[in-house]
């Protein structure tokens, strides 16, 4: 009985003392960089355990709400050159354009279409945005352990200015390094996607997950993104993140 009381007391104390926004802002602050580059290998595993491999190259300039990113497929061969430009904003949803070399044309990804899966992976277009704390309200729920690491479990709800397919998300943030351990995205009470972050390493002072397992609950499929050749703060030019640059292939 006394253990239960102690636990209840600890949790109440925790919930009263810690502002979840501060947790998220600290997490965001610790991942602020001028730029990021990595090569990603994606293994898409469908409900029948059939595996498809894809690869992309990711470049980002700026951080979070003020960042711009270009994601360009490098494999399989037939989608080589297909690219997505994401312009993130601190106060609203991102702008996104997709470049398809076969058409020599870019196409804007409309807000209402962001729940669509991105090129057969389990990531939706919305999942490729950078989250910015200013676009969400937070509520600290509890402390839980993910992969043996103690985490804060925080509920995040998009503000009105943020158009989202998810009504709310649960975020697990590691207490030791403020890195994300897991995110569950819900539409009302239905789990839509779960992103599980693992192989978390310190790269240039930034704790980074080198593996993200995105699970689509409805399709029961997974996409495992392995992050390789990760570099932060590499020199990048702002003009490499425009619609015109999207059509430049290398």
């Amino acid at each position, binding site marked *: 009985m006394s253990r239960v009381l102690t636990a209840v007391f600890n949790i109440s104390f925790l919930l009263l003392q810690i502002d979840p926004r501060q947790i998220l802002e600290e997490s965001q602050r610790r991942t602020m960089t001028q730029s990021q580059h990595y090569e990603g290998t994606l293994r898409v595993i469908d409900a029948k355990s059939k595996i498809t491999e894809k690869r992309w190259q990711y470049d980002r300039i700026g951080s979070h709400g003020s960042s711009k990113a270009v994601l360009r497929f490098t494999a*399989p061969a037939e989608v080589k*050159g297909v690219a997505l430009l994401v312009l993130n904003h601190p106060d609203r949803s991102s702008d996104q354009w997709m470049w398809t070399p076969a058409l020599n044309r870019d196409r804007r990804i409309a807000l*209402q279409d962001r729940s669509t899966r991105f090129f057969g992976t389990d990531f939706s277009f919305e999942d490729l945005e950078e989250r910015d704390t200013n676009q969400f309200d937070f509520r600290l729920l509890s402390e839980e352990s993910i992969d043996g690491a103690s985490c804060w479990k925080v509920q995040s709800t998009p503000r009105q200015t943020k158009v989202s397919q998810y009504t709310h998300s649960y975020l697990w943030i590691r207490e030791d390094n403020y890195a994300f351990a897991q995110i569950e995205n819900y539409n009302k009470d239905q789990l839509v996607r779960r992103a599980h972050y693992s192989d978390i390493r310190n790269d240039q002072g930034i704790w980074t997950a080198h593996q993200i397992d995105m699970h689509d609950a409805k399709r029961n499929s997974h996409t495992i993104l392995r992050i390789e050749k990760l570099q932060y703060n590499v020199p990048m030019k702002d*003009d490499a993140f425009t619609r015109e640059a999207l059509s430049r292939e290398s």
Partner: protein
Amino acid sequence: MGGTGNVRALTLLLFVLLATSNCYSQTYTQRGFLETKNTFYPQEAPNDRAHTVGESLFRYEGFLSPTSSVQLAGALDFRIDTHRQVDRDFQLSWQDREIRRPLGEIRRLSATYHKGPLTFEMGKHFIRWGKSDIVTPTDRFAPRDFLAVVDNDFLAVTAARFNFEKGTNTIEAVWSPRFTPSRIPIPNQRWAVLPELPPGITLRDAGAAFPGGPQSGARWNHTGAIEYELSFYQGFNHLPSFDAVPRFTSSGIQVDVRRFYPKIIMVGGDIAASTPWFTLKGEAAQFNSSDDRADEYALYVIQLERQSGEWFFVGGYAGEAITRPGTRVADFAPDRGLTKTLLGRAGYTIDANRNIVFEAAVRQNGEGVWVKSEYSHLLGLHWRATLNLTLISGNTGDFLGQYHRNSHAMIVVRYSF
């Protein structure tokens, strides 16, 4: 650029670029494919009794960036076929003015310089304007290969392009010194539907009168919650009109049919607006001409788009209003032929490797219908097989209906690298 010597020089340059790519392997990307396409037509056409057509295409594209501000892009096509749609004599073509597809072609060769918000590109390259699908009235620098009318591919244009992109605004100016026409169906093949003539009258292809002057255009695009664009083009229609001159010969009347490409001025625009349910797109253009033989007309398209789960839908209407009829005998104008038409496109992604697409165009008077369904399957990392079924029906007097004998099944196998 038209001489054989220039083509050789350009080819040499392309190969030098590709060869030097080893020195810059970190900034060189390449891709390409080998594709074989087999088309089966159940019906014979009056001018073409073949039921099957086989084609193979090898395409190689390379992109070299010797510095962070410069990019060189090159692409080569090599083709063969069973139906003489491809020239049999080897020649590396630059011009894209041949009646048949060239056996070898420099598909693209361009240099791009960019600094800050400025981009300058020159050479042979692709320029796409407009936002709508299937019919794109403002897409004036985009001639196509229409040898098989409903299965067409874009041709590059020789041009200089200046682009300024700053924040939410983009201004682009294009100047093309040399005209690139669309490639039209070959007269003795099924996609050229010739008129039925009384006995004693024959048609003779009198060739083409290619215009010699330059073309130019400019557009301004604004991106925001509502995206819109205004565009202007001055040049020539890349789709031909026809003049006919009758001549009396010993065997009867011979009509010389000559292609010409009328001068046009286009003023147009497009708009895209997102709502919580769908994206609304509109595009319209007015075409005026100083050539009395050509029609003056307006084209417009209104379409709705939506993606939902694994489905995407595009549906709309394309319309036309003739403001001044011309005196020419006939046109080959797929863009106008697909107006007064309801257009639709839907696709479903079955899984990471398989998808199906349906496309349809139905004339509002019901005189022409085109329906295409396509199943595509990616096998491993390199192979893709596609099965395409196309049904065309309608009346001979209708743009779509005239191809009612050309319903077909197509199998495409592609190896990409």
